[in-house]
């Protein structure tokens, strides 16, 4: 029996009935990681010893007849921008390469309280800025369906780990599609909960009005299982919603109500791979067979979403990332070399006047900040800090940031109006399947435009889920995007659950090449 091929809900049942133990389950997944991690590269930290300790503790408690949590014995991986006291939290950035947080994020405390087996930290684009996980300062993660392609991003490690069967559950973060897009490209199920549904205390901030933590897993049922543990009010996060957490797993298995869905037809035309469009149209038929009415709709403001998003997200990022100063924590440049360089610049400035150096030498403290940040951040992070600083700077603030904030309201209002007519929206998550490693790395704008279908949900703060619904001619997974009003997680996951009862896309597994050497 290949335990690593089971879903989290199936494993939970077996564990609950005592047919298998948590240690046995953990060992099966650890073996899988050891086997395929060299090819896939999903993890930045992998800690089998600590995982097995937690599993043994769960088994002991079960043997003694003590109560255990809903995730008892299930291995979970955590994206490396979520703070853990056990392991470094690097955000895949050189500037946090050695950062060991002094506290656990609230979601990590909740996972521990739910008796999850935490196995390690997954790779991502640096500071969650990117859509391919190529922008990690440490390693490239490969798509398990085709190792020459990206897994998507920024939660690329989280999605690849689930797709490769290395963990049944993982936790990511989504600022503009960073859970849904890699879930789509790796053929797994991923949810961006409503803004406020899950506490962000201990999530390293990228864009605070957009960031949200959420679950990735094989099935909607597994996502619901994990969401029940992650969601809930947290006094440590002032933006977390003080609202009851519904029993998602139970609710999603109820028969579908009589509802109408809106098909985003503008996302099936120009610029969208015909195989992707075809897979979405097939998905519409599945819903029609389930008795769901589907009507074509258009979101006219959606064409503005990418521009609006990249002004707002970079503005917030430029402010949030000001904290990396080489003083409080993280990387600091070589001070001695910095002082020498500065002395040399000052000497030239004094001797030959302003024309000898491009700008007046900084005071030492300012230069420490600038050199630390120049050396610690990667190119994309710098680009976004620059764009955001520009958009917020005197003379440009109104034209860029303020105007984008107004357009953001237009986008939200259009969603609100649309949700008067339809209960949820369906469309593709991405315009194409996974692209090749290196394909878009030289073209930041092309990378941004790949987010066209996902950023709207973050701007509006609504719930959205990605589920596997087909394959392209190259055999790459296609993701179906379901978006609903704030706190519509039960409906979205219910639609996903019934879709997955009728289809088997979520059950398909990539064929990973046999490793050259036996497991270490």
């Amino acid at each position, binding site marked *: 029996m290949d335990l690593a091929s089971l879903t989290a809900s199936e494993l939970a049942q077996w564990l609950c009935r005592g047919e298998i133990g948590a240690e046995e389950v953990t060992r099966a997944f650890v073996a899988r990681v050891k086997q395929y991690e060299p090819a896939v590269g999903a993890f930045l930290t992998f800690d089998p010893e600590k995982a097995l300790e937690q599993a043994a503790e769960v088994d002991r408690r079960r043997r003694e007849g003590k109560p255990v949590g809903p995730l008892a014995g299930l291995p979970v991986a955590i994206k490396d921008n979520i703070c853990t006291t056990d392991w470094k939290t690097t955000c895949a950035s050189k500037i946090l390469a050695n950062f060991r947080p002094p506290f656990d994020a609230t979601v990590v405390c909740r996972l521990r309280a739910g008796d999850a087996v935490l196995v390690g930290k997954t790779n991502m684009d640096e500071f969650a800025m990117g859509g391919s996980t190529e922008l990690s300062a440490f390693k490239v993660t490969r798509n398990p369906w085709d190792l020459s392609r990206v897994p998507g991003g920024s939660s690329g490690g989280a999605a690849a780990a689930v797709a490769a069967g290395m963990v049944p559950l993982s936790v990511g973060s989504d600022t503009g599609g960073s859970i849904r897009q890699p879930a789509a490209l790796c053929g797994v199920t991923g949810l961006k909960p409503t803004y406020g549904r899950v506490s962000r205390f201990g999530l390293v901030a990228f864009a605070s009005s957009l960031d949200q933590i959420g679950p990735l897993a094989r099935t909607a049922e597994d996502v619901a299982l994990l969401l029940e543990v992650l969601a809930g009010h947290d006094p440590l996060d002032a933006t977390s919603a003080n609202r009851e957490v519904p029993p998602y797993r139970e609710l999603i298995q109820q028969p579908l109500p009589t509802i109408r869905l809106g098909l985003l037809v503008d996302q099936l035309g120009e610029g969208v791979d015909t195989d992707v469009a075809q897979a979405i149209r097939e998905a519409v038929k599945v819903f029609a067979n389930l008795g769901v009415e589907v009507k074509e709709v258009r979101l006219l403001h959606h064409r503005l979403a990418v521009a609006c998003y990249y002004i707002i997200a970079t503005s917030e990022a430029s402010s949030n990332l000001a904290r990396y100063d080489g003083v409080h924590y993280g990387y600091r440049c070589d*001070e001695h070399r910095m002082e020498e360089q500065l002395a040399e610049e000052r000497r030239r400035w004094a001797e030959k006047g302003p024309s000898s150096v491009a700008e007046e030498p900084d005071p030492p403290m300012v230069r420490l900040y*600038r050199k630390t940040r120049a050396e610690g951040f990667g190119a994309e992070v710098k680009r976004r800090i620059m764009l955001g600083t520009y958009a917020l700077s005197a003379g440009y603030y109104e034209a860029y940031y303020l105007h984008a904030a*107004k357009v953001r309201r237009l986008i939200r209002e259009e969603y609100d109006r649309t949700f008067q007519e339809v209960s949820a929206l369906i469309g593709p998550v991405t315009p194409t399947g996974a692209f090749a490693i290196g394909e878009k790395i030289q073209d930041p704008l092309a990378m941004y435009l790949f987010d066209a279908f996902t950023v709207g949900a973050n701007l509006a703060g609504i719930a959205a889920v990605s589920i596997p619904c087909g394959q392209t001619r190259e055999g790459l997974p296609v993701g179906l995007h379901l978006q609903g009003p704030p706190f519509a997680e039960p409906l979205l996951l219910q639609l996903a659950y019934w879709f997955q009862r009728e289809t088997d896309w979520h059950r398909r597994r990539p064929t990973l090449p046999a490793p050259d050497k036996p497991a270490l």
Partner: protein
Amino acid sequence: MAITPEEVRKVAYLARLLLSEDEIAEMAAQLSRILEYMEILRGVDASHVEPMAHPLELTNVFREDRVAPSLPREEALKNAPKHDGECYLVPAVLGPA
């Protein structure tokens, strides 16, 4: 909307980044291209729309003002690149003597 190398230099200073001359040239070209794409927003009349800074539009969240344990100094300094056990250490703040 083109952004000049001079503007890039100024923004890099505001952002506390240090860019080489090559990076400045590359950044000017890339940002210009991105800002040109942002022009898509220009055609939208949003003059009468209230800006939306946040999806929740909270006014304020209060809590009791109670003394509670906080991070011990040792823990707070643990990740600092340079400290003396009590304070963070930094270069001279007031510029060259």
